[in-house]
């Protein structure tokens, strides 16, 4: 019973840390997905006197992913009833070219300013419409989300450090006596610490397995994804391969670190 209790204290601490990290992962992924949505829906419109080659503009501006010509036919069709064919022909010939520029990522306001200025420096470009006011508002909202997530990540770090420090004190109390007794009979440090490492590795495996099982259950129950889908965000709640690998890595890393800290602090009683 006592042995179970000893295991439980580290497993509970590791489980809490891993759970918080996975929640942070989900938040981070949802923000990335939201940012990707923004990027896909955002474009800059340029008006040019002459045709623009896609290769020439994408090679010049790394921020521009692609360029697509906007056909003026919809507008011209609307005018068909009011104008004769000759006038429409003249209008068609005199109209400039309209292009929609898609970008590599959702840009910062300063990046838009620079890009707009550089595009306007090109002889054939008459005008650039970046819809900057709407963009700025959305960008600020994104920054707010990111800020909140970073504060959350910082809080995780603090909680993790506090939990590790607490565990360290508990472990020191639990293992110091045994290590001292083993030292009295000439056990080398490796042998004295063997129980500690065995315990640390076992607890890390149990905690990581529990967290994986928890999130697999959450995925299968379908509780989280619909909430994100409602706001058009498609997020992977738990990627079995990469997230499992990450949790095993973090749990093993933390518990082995804890064991190493304890060994480094171990002092033989005199």
């Amino acid at each position, binding site marked *: 019973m*006592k042995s179970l209790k000893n295991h439980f204290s580290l497993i509970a601490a590791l489980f809490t840390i891993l759970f918080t990290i996975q929640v942070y992962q989900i938040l981070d992924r949802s923000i990335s997905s939201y940012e990707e949505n923004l990027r896909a829906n955002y474009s800059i419109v340029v008006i040019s006197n002459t045709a623009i080659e896609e290769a020439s503009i994408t090679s010049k501006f790394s921020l521009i992913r692609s360029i697509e010509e906007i056909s003026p036919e919809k507008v011209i069709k609307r005018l068909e009833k009011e104008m004769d064919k000759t006038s429409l022909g003249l209008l068609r010939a005199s109209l400039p070219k309209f292009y929609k520029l898609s970008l590599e990522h959702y840009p910062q306001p300063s990046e838009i300013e620079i890009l707009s200025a550089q595009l306007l420096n090109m002889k054939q470009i008459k005008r650039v419409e970046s819809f900057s006011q709407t963009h700025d508002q959305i960008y600020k909202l994104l920054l707010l989300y990111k800020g909140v997530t970073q504060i959350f990540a910082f809080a995780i770090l603090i909680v993790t450090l506090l939990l590790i420090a607490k565990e360290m004190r508990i472990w020191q109390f639990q293992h110091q006596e*045994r290590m001292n*007794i*083993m030292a009295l*009979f*000439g056990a*080398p*440090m490796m*042998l004295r610490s063997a129980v500690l490492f065995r315990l640390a590795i076992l607890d890390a495996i149990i905690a990581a397995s529990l967290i994986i099982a928890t999130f697999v259950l959450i995925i299968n129950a379908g509780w989280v994804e619909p909430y994100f889908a409602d706001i058009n965000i498609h997020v992977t709640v738990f990627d079995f391969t990469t997230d499992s690998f990450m949790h095993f890595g973090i749990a093993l890393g933390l518990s082995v670190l804890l064991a190493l800290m304890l060994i480094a602090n171990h002092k033989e009683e*005199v």
Partner: protein
Amino acid sequence: MDKVIIAKDLTLSYNNNETIINQCSFDINSGDFVFITGASGSGKSTLLKSLYGALSPKQGDLVVGGVTMNNINSKKLNFLRRHVGIVFQDYKLIKEWTIEKNVMLPLIISGYAKDVSEIQVQKLLTHVKLNHQLGKYPLELSGGEQQRVAMARALAHNPIIILADEPTGNLDDYSSQVIWNLLEGACKQLKTTVVVVTHHIPETMKTDYKHLHIEHGSIYEVS
């Protein structure tokens, strides 16, 4: 006769620099049974600590089992401790281990095979009359029984020296007598050197063995 402990002008002190043992010299021969006595705080346990390397000599020389204890490194210290059996007043058993595993500890450390260790532990627990308790944990036993387990552990690896610090300090008369018999048996039958720090030498053993007394930082042999 071989000298198993040699102290020459030995001075011992803790970090606060107060001298506990001051320039003392003594020898202990192989197979000797030695009592170390003195008032509380006289330095009996400090002297014993220096014999198992928990405290380094401040000055002078100390050799235990052929190993020089001055500035000893951990490798040499571990080697020495694998040839020394230690018994404490508070038993120092590992609470989360069974009696069997506690007695097996020196054998595990010395790298004995499991089957050999099991036979040795069975033999020792029979010797201390606890062979029926090997699956129990220390806190399930009485103080006297725990000290018998500690004795079995101290004997497990056939040590050249047994160091005992107030081994009967927490025990009733009957249990104390059992421990004295075990220590005496180790010395007489196994020819192990036994050094015992104690407040009280049993009447029956008073005249038979070497007796070192510590007073005001000096060590005298009582004849």
